[in-house]
């Protein structure tokens, strides 16, 4: 059977090889993207795991003291780890060869580069030590990370003063770095990565069906012949499946190989302030094999489903009857799901894993219901346009939409989903982040309320003549009962890093910040989310473009006889091209536009408060424009095929 299938493919002529090749190509692209989506999760996990040592488990009687803090220099955030040995048996932290001695500062390569040429008083003095060496990558999330590991005396203030900021670890005794907590922000990234994977995987898997359908389109006539000479429906299905699976295996292998070869390129996508180690993307290597094996199976499954709907009678005529009207109940299902999601997620508020799980399930249900709603909307749109069409192209496009709204929806669903995400996220504003020093700068450090006066006096003495020091009463946002004060120092912009160095050394605990500094973290988050959104949008659009291209080719092959005869009767190709273009553009513009607006509507209250961010608008407009152009361009790629099909008049057997 396999031999026969292969022979049929090989002898099927250019057309058969074309559609088999296209199937393989589509599967290769899908596999590549799927591998990327899956690997991204492992990459985030690898990063999280590598940085867990920075929040190590506390020990009753430890061999070392551990604390961490976040320092600022200009527009950069520097994570600092303070370490002090309690006995001779202190554990060696990752990225170092020995436990750092007091006064030793080990820096990440990026920090070393940043500090190159910076006067000691402007930065390194705040650590009361000197640079002893460069940290290995085992200590780092990525090459762009700014990290300093500082060796201290066990009784130095840095090892005793509590930190109040949630991103910092207060001094604690530890006896090893093997057990630690992943940082909060890494948890956020991993959750977003799962969401992004789902968003990318959905359109990618829709691919399989389209690709399988393409093989079937080319085979209709020949399969009918096989039925005529007595092949059972089962055999016909098997023959088609073998061909499709052969193509899918080839595509899956090629896609995986392409992924392996291109990991260094994908590793350059900067998330959370830096690019990836290529090894991170290989974190899930066993899963890579699993994905490669699963893709042909998924393609085979969707081919079976696709074949079921193409009833191949021995006469080969998949007869077209009046399209089944899709029921308006689809609208109701969607409305119920969406309202349930909105109401329940409001009611649950912020509390707990269970609430999050329920909200996530309802969100998934809403997305699923959107897949029910989409074809219905496409069909309504088609009906409306068919009744108002004046010219032939619009009429043909509209009838096609009414006839097979699911196919049209498949082509645009990814873009619609992406549009919604892009609309809601891309416009999320970045905070003001001009980190260049102004003429006058004020840095503020939080201190415990009890000894605030004494600390302020120390600061005043240390900064004598350099800065104006003030003590400010402040309420702790999280814990109002806790007494807290802040010491602020006002100085000229030129001296701000010098002042910061002195203040950091003097007031151990939370390092001093400018007001603009605390936007750095959220900006990095928004920036990362935007990069992520752009990546997801690119993937979704790439998928949409390839699947638009494939379904256009499939539909040309499907109708090649009719197209040929229309050409004989004098129909210009221009009209057919127009009709085919409108078939994609009309639902794309209508549904894609609606989804972007919906997404924007969802976040507009927030944006209204914080003001519109132009860079977000630019990202949104550029991705949507490029993506739409890609989808339309891919559809247009079948024009040469249409031309050759239309002009294929002779010689042919009578």
């Amino acid at each position, binding site marked *: 059977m396999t031999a026969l299938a292969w022979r049929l493919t090989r002898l099927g002529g250019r057309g058969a090889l074309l559609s088999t090749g296209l199937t393989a190509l589509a599967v290769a692209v899908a596999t590549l993207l799927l591998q990327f989506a899956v690997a991204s999760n492992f990459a985030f996990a690898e990063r999280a795991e590598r940085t867990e040592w920075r929040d190590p488990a506390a020990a009753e009687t430890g061999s070392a003291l551990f604390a961490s803090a976040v320092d600022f220099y200009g527009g950069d955030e520097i994570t600092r780890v303070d370490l002090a040995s309690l006995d001779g048996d202190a554990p060696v932290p990752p990225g170092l060869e020995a436990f750092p001695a007091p006064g030793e500062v080990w820096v990440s390569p990026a920090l070393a580069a940043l500090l190159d040429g910076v006067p000691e008083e402007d930065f390194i003095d705040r650590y009361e030590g000197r640079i002893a060496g460069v940290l290995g990558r085992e200590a780092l999330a990525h090459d762009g990370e700014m990290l300093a590991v500082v060796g201290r005396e066990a009784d130095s203030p840095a090892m005793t003063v509590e930190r109040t900021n949630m991103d910092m670890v207060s001094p604690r005794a530890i006896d090893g770095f093997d057990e630690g907590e992943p940082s909060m922000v890494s948890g956020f990234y991993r959750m977003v990565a799962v969401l992004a994977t789902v968003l990318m995987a959905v359109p990618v898997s829709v691919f399989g069906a389209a690709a399988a359908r393409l093989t079937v389109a080319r085979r209709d006539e020949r399969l009918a012949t096989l039925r005529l000479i007595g092949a059972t429906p089962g055999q016909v299905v098997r023959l088609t499946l073998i061909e499709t699976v052969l193509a899918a295996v080839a595509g899956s292998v090629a896609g995986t190989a392409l992924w392996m070869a291109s990991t260094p390129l994908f590793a350059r996508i900067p998330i959370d302030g830096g690019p990836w180690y290529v090894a991170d993307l290989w974190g899930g290597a066993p899963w890579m094999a699993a994905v490669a094996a699963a893709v042909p199976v998924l393609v085979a499954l969707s081919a079976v489903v696709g074949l079921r709907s193409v009833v191949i009678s021995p006469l080969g005529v998949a007869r077209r009857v009046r399209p089944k009207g899709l029921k308006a109940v689809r609208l109701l299902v969607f409305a119920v799901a969406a309202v349930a999601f909105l109401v329940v997620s409001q009611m649950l508020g912020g509390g707990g894993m269970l609430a999050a799980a329920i909200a996530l399930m309802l969100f998934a249900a809403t997305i699923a219901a959107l897949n029910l709603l989409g074809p219905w909307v496409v069909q309504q749109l088609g009906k409306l346009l068919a009744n108002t069409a004046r010219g032939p192209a619009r009429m043909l496009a509209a009838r*096609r939409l009414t006839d097979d709204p699911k196919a049209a929806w498949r082509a645009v669903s990814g873009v619609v989903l992406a549009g919604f995400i892009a609309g809601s996220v891309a416009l999320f504003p970045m905070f003001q982040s001009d980190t260049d020093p102004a003429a006058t700068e004020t840095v503020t450090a939080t201190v415990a309320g009890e000894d605030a006066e004494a600390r302020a006096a120390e600061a005043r003495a240390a900064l004598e003549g350099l800065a104006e020091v003030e003590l400010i009463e402040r309420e702790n946002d999280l814990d109002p009962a806790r007494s807290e004060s802040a010491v602020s120092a006002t100085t000229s912009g030129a001296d701000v890093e010098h002042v910061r160095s002195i203040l950091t050394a003097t007031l151990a605990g939370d390092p001093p910040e400018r007001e603009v500094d605390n936007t750095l973290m959220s900006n990095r988050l928004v920036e990362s989310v935007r990069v992520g959104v752009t990546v997801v949008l690119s993937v979704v659009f790439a998928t949409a473009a390839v699947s638009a291209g494939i379904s256009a080719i499939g539909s040309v092959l499907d109708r090649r006889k*009719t197209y040929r005869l229309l050409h004989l009767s004098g129909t210009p190709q221009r009209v057919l091209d127009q009709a085919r273009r409108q078939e994609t553009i009309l639902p794309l513009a209508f549904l894609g536009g609606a989804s972007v607006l919906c997404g924007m509507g969802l976040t507009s209250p927030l944006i209204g408060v914080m003001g519109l961010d132009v860079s977000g608008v630019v990202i949104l407009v550029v991705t949507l424009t490029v993506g739409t152009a890609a989808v339309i361009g891919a559809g247009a790629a079948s024009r040469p095929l249409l031309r050759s099909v239309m002009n294929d008049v002779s010689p042919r057997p009578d």
Partner: protein
Amino acid sequence: MSAPMLTAKGLRKHYGTAVALGGVDFAVAGGESVAVTGPSGSGKSTLLHCLAGVLRPDEGEVRLFDERIDALSERERSELRRTRFAFLFQFGQLLPELPAEENVALPLMLGGTPRRKALGPARERLRQLGLAGKEDRRPGELSGGEAQRVALARALVVDPAVVFADEPTGALDRATGDQVMGVLLDTVAGLGAALVVVTHDPLVAARCTRTVEIRDGLLRHGGDLVSSGAAEAGR
């Protein structure tokens, strides 16, 4: 016989080394129906395609009234095929997703007529061909004979000068085929148009006013070899 509408002189067409037409003269007048018969591969379809301006002959000329159509550009020939000629094929010429009336209206719409205006004559043609009440059906919901009559309605909706039919009854049973052939001959004659039918079927050929046979790219009328090109271009 009135003055010919469509004339061809010395048509030659090669595919590689294979000769499809070896020098053919042909003429058909308004109100006349000509059956082109011959075995498979004899060049029937090639002749039809050359006459209809689908293919350009390697040599020779084709005229509609006095206009040379083989010399026109692809675009002009397309328009000619859409406005002056009409085509009827064995099957498969209807767009499956369009209802019957829109299939018929399509040539008018391609010519720039708005849909609402084009639907009027389309429905009228369907009614004349006995398809009243079925305007809204899709091709898949029609019988073979009905679908062929819809195709005929579409062919005639532009009031063509010449109708080309390629095995128009090939996919139909004898009774339905007879019926469709009768409607075809009657309506074309009623329009005063010329009809060229390519067929295998001697019964179809017998109903036409004239029959020509093509063999190995050369035309015979009632057994006589007639070829303007054969004498001088035999080598």
